[in-house]
C-alpha cells in the first residue's frame, strides 16, 4: 500500500471489520477509491470456554456470505482491481488437486475416508499417511488461547473406528518444501529447509522459533512454472501462494493453493520486493483497464 501511495495512486485495504463498518450505511455503494487490495480473509471464531456451540458455525456461514457478496461487488466495479479474489470454487483443495493433476503436476495420492479400515485398504502397509482440513482449517481462539491445526501424520492408536469424512494423503518423503507466490504469470519461489527440525518436518508452520527453518530464494524448473500458470488460469486466480514439495525422488509435488497469498515471508527472506511488484501490477491494471 505504501508503494501505491508512493507512486501517487489511491488504494484501500479492507479487513473484515472494515467491511462490516462499510456495510452499515453503504451496502450497495462502491467502496470508494479506484483500487482495492483485500489482504486477509480471517475466520477467527470467538468461542466460549466450556462449550462448543452450533452458533459458532452459523456465525461462520453468516460471515462468509457477507464476504462473498463484498468480493463479488468490488470485483465487478469499474475501477476496482482485486487480486487474490477467492470464491467457493478456487479455494477448494480437492478442485485444486484435480486441476493440478490435469495440467500434469504430480500430486500426492489422496482420498476421503470415514473409517479406520479404509486407511489400511487405501494405503500400503508401512506407508505413512497425513491428514489435513478440506477447508482452511481450524482456527479458534479466545482471549487466552488459540487452537490451530496442521498437516499431521495419522497415528493408528489415535484413530477412531469411524469419523467425519476426512482428507488423507500419502506422506511424501520431502527433501524440502517450496512456497511460490504467483502474480499474474510470474512465480516467486522460496525453498524452506524444514527437514532440519523434527518439529517442522511434516508441516513447517509448526515453527521452531529457537532454530527457525532456513528460507532461501529458489528457481523452479520452467515446466513447473508453466504448469502453475495453467493451474492458476484454470482456477481464475491472478495471485496466490502455492505449496509444493520437492521429494527425495526429485519430483515437484503440488499440495495446495492459498488464494489469499501470504507473500510477506517469501518477499522478506528472498528480497523479492513483492509489495512493489503487487503495487506495479495494480497500477498497470488501473491504467489499462479503467
Amino acid at each position, binding site marked *: 500500500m505504501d508503494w501505491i501511495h508512493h507512486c501517487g495512486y489511491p488504494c484501500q485495504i479492507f479487513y473484515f471489520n472494515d467491511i462490516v463498518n462499510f456495510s452499515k450505511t453503504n451496502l450497495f455503494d462502491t467502496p470508494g477509491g479506484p483500487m482495492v487490495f483485500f489482504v486477509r480473509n480471517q475466520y477467527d471464531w470467538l*468461542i466460549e*470456554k*466450556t*462449550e*462448543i456451540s*452450533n452458533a459458532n*458455525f452459523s456465525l461462520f456461514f453468516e460471515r462468509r456470505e457477507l464476504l462473498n457478496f463484498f468480493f463479488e461487488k468490488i470485483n465487478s466495479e469499474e475501477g476496482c482491481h482485486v487480486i487474490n479474489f477467492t470464491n467457493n470454487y478456487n479455494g477448494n483443495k480437492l478442485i485444486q488437486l484435480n486441476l493440478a493433476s490435469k495440467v500434469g503436476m504430480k500430486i500426492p495420492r489422496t482420498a476421503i475416508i470415514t473409517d479406520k479400515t479404509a486407511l489400511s485398504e487405501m494405503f500400503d502397509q508401512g506407508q505413512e499417511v497425513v*491428514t*489435513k*482440513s*478440506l477447508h482452511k*482449517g*481450524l482456527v*479458534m*481462539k*479466545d*482471549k*487466552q*488461547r*488459540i*487452537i*490451530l*491445526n*496442521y498437516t*499431521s501424520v*495419522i497415528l493408528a492408536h*489415535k*484413530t*477412531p*473406528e*469411524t*469419523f*467425519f*469424512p*476426512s*482428507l488423507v494423503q500419502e506422506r511424501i518423503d520431502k527433501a*524440502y518444501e517450496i512456497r511460490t507466490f504467483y502474480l499474474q504469470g510470474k512465480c516467486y*519461489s522460496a*525453498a524452506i*529447509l524444514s527437514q*532440519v527440525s523434527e518439529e517442522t518436518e511434516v508441516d513447517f508452520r509448526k*515453527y521452531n*522459533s*529457537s*532454530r*527457525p527453518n*532456513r528460507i*532461501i*530464494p*529458489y*528457481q*523452479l*524448473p520452467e515446466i513447473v512454472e508453466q504448469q502453475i500458470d495453467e493451474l492458476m488460469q484454470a482456477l481464475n486466480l491472478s495471485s496466490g501462494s502455492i505449496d509444493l514439495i520437492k521429494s527425495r525422488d526429485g519430483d515437484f509435488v503440488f499440495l495446495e493453493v492459498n488464494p489469499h497469498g501470504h507473500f510477506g*515471508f517469501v518477499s*522478506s*527472506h*528472498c*528480497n*523479492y*520486493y513483492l509489495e512493489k511488484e503487487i503495487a506495479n501490477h495494480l497500477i498497470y491494471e488501473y491504467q489499462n483497464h479503467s
Partner: protein
Amino acid sequence: MSTKTTPEKSILQSLQQHDNGKYMFPLYFLYAEEMDSGKQVITLSSNEKYNTSHFETSPFYKQISPLTY
C-alpha cells in the same frame, strides 16, 4: 454438534474426545494444538549455521543479491 463438557475440560479435549469409536469430527481435529494466544512468535532470523551445501549445489538454487534490486 452438542458436545457438552465439564468446566474443567478444555475446548480441544472436547473436540478430540471419542469413546468406543464414536467420534463426530474430521481426523485433523485430533491433531489440533492449543496454545496461549501470545505464544505464536515467529523468529525471522537466526545466527545459527545450517549445512545447506547439498542444497546450494542444486541447479534450481537461485542466487539473488539484494543489490540486484
